[in-house]
């Protein structure tokens, strides 16, 4: 009976645990062999939370948003504004406020935008993102406009880290981010395997049929939208202490596109797809940026290549290689 509920390797808790361990172990190794690239691992982990949040909407509910930068912005500016105006130092408090602010935005915008599907939803979200971007840009006496808000060192778990070396601070921050991400990953595993998760997949596959089964699809889509917003807002908040500057750029539509890119690169139909995609994208971007000013072009070619060679993302390649080897072993054992 349990087998009747499909558990592909790419959706398993074991895969998530393996990823968390790799992300923890890789940091000191990178610090040792390629010190300049270690910080991108932290960036990658943060983006993975955003992409995971984006994918509960895209991969699991079938709603493509081109405006998730709105929530990155909300998260980042929550950190910036609470530091600037309230003198807050504890990051945990800021994360909670950022998640609450994202949820509130989702609950205000959601009931309107979720009445539309497909391209209308995507464009509606793009507009929401751009409105907020315009707000951060133009309300400069509050947001600092293009100058943004500078972020000093934050307290992690009540520890004052002003006195430690910068590299130590970055290392501490990496593991802090990874701990938050681990909780976010495992929570997402529960969500997608819960009755809610399955109902969302049903809505994605056939909304009319889901309604006929008595599922309140608008309400469940709003729940998914809010979860998505909270994850992405959390990522935005974690980003701020690392960029050390909160500026409108974080809420620009390009960031929304980046989240879409990461998710599709990794594979939207796998739980771990967006995580793998976010880490790989972050490194590709940093490496491509270092080599050429035409890095947009390189990434563009890459996404086209992935779309042609493995339309379901990199995780699909992993999955089909695993399936092929299973098949080969099966055939071999039968003939022997």
């Amino acid at each position, binding site marked *: *009976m349990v087998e*009747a*509920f499909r558990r592909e390797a790419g959706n398993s808790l074991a895969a998530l645990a393996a990823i968390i361990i790799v992300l923890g172990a890789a940091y000191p190794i990178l610090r040792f062999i390629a010190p300049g690239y270690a910080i991108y691992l932290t960036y990658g982990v943060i983006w993975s939370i955003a992409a995971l949040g984006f994918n509960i909407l895209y991969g699991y509910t079938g709603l493509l948003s081109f405006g998730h930068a709105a929530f990155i912005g909300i998260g980042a500016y929550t950190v910036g504004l609470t530091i600037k105006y309230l003198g807050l130092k504890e990051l945990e408090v800021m994360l909670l406020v950022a998640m609450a602010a994202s949820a509130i935005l989702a609950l205000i915008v959601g009931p309107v935008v979720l009445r539309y599907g497909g391209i209308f939803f995507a464009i509606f979200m793009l507009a929401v993102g751009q409105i907020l971007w315009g707000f951060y840009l133009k309300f400069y006496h509050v947001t600092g406009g293009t100058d943004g808000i500078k972020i000093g060192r934050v307290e992690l778990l009540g520890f004052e880290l002003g006195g430690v070396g910068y590299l130590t601070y970055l290392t501490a921050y990496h593991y802090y981010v990874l701990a938050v991400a681990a909780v976010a990953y495992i929570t997402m595993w529960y969500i997608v395997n819960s*009755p809610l*998760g399955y*109902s969302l*997949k*049903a809505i994605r596959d056939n909304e*009319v049929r889901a309604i*006929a089964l008595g599922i309140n699809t608008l309400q469940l889509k709003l729940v998914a939208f809010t979860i998505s917003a909270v994850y992405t807002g959390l990522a935005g908040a974690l980003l701020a202490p690392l960029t050390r500057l909160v500026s409108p750029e974080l809420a620009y539509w390009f960031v929304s596109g980046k989240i879409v890119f990461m998710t599709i690169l990794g594979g939207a139909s796998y739980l771990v797809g967006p995580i793998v995609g976010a880490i790989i994208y972050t490194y590709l971007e940093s490496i491509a940026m270092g080599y050429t000013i035409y890095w947009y072009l390189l990434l563009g070619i890459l996404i086209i290549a992935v779309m042609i060679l493995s339309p379901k993302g990199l995780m699909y390649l992993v999955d089909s290689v695993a399936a092929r080897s299973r098949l080969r072993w099966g055939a071999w054992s039968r003939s022997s």
Partner: protein
Amino acid sequence: MVEVLLRVENLYKHFGGVRAVDGVSFSLSWGERLFIVGPNGAGKTTLVNLISGYLKPDRGRILFKGEDVTGFGLAERVRRGIARSFQLVTVFDNLTVAENIAVSVASRLGRNRVAYRTLSSYRDVVEEVERVLEIFELEDVAGKYPTELSQGDRKILDVALTFSLKPSLIILDEPTSGVATRDKRSVMERLVKAFDVAGVSSIVVEHDMDIVFKYAKRVMAMHEGRVLADGDPASVKGDEEVKRILLGGVYA
């Protein structure tokens, strides 16, 4: 009165000059199964659309469990226990057979919003899914995706989703349409058996006369919106008008 599940009184539905349903009355007991037959345009689908709430009648009353549901919308009727499936199969293609049924069961139990526990950790959901799989003989394909199933199994899965909502009355519109001829009988047999096991009432619109006369205890023949005959298969088959209009001499 208690034994009567559904009572249809003098139902009329005209589309312009077409008398789709023209004064139909009948009643259905708890656990009873009614086959509706008739040529194209006889008003069979219109009648089941009126009963399930997709259409509103011009005149007449529909009583369900003693309650007048004529003015009720679709959702209200579903909540009271009237469910139907359509001619085209609609299931969730990226969920396995078991997961498809689990979604329906979770919906009936009001658990759609639960996000902190896995669906497969609910003992009552899993037991109910296993029961439905067994009733419809879908155990062997429980872990498959609907796209990997035969058309007959897809049809049965579609009905099983509706069945999982535990309605008192299931309305099926041509359940064997699109199913390969050699599978038609087994599909109908599994459906009929499932309804009998669960004691659920059903109204089945069916084109295939061989199937109807094999599995029916009660048949209602329609023509031009009116009921020609209503009764056990033998008496309906023996009816002169039915012979002339429906059977075209084949069974004479």
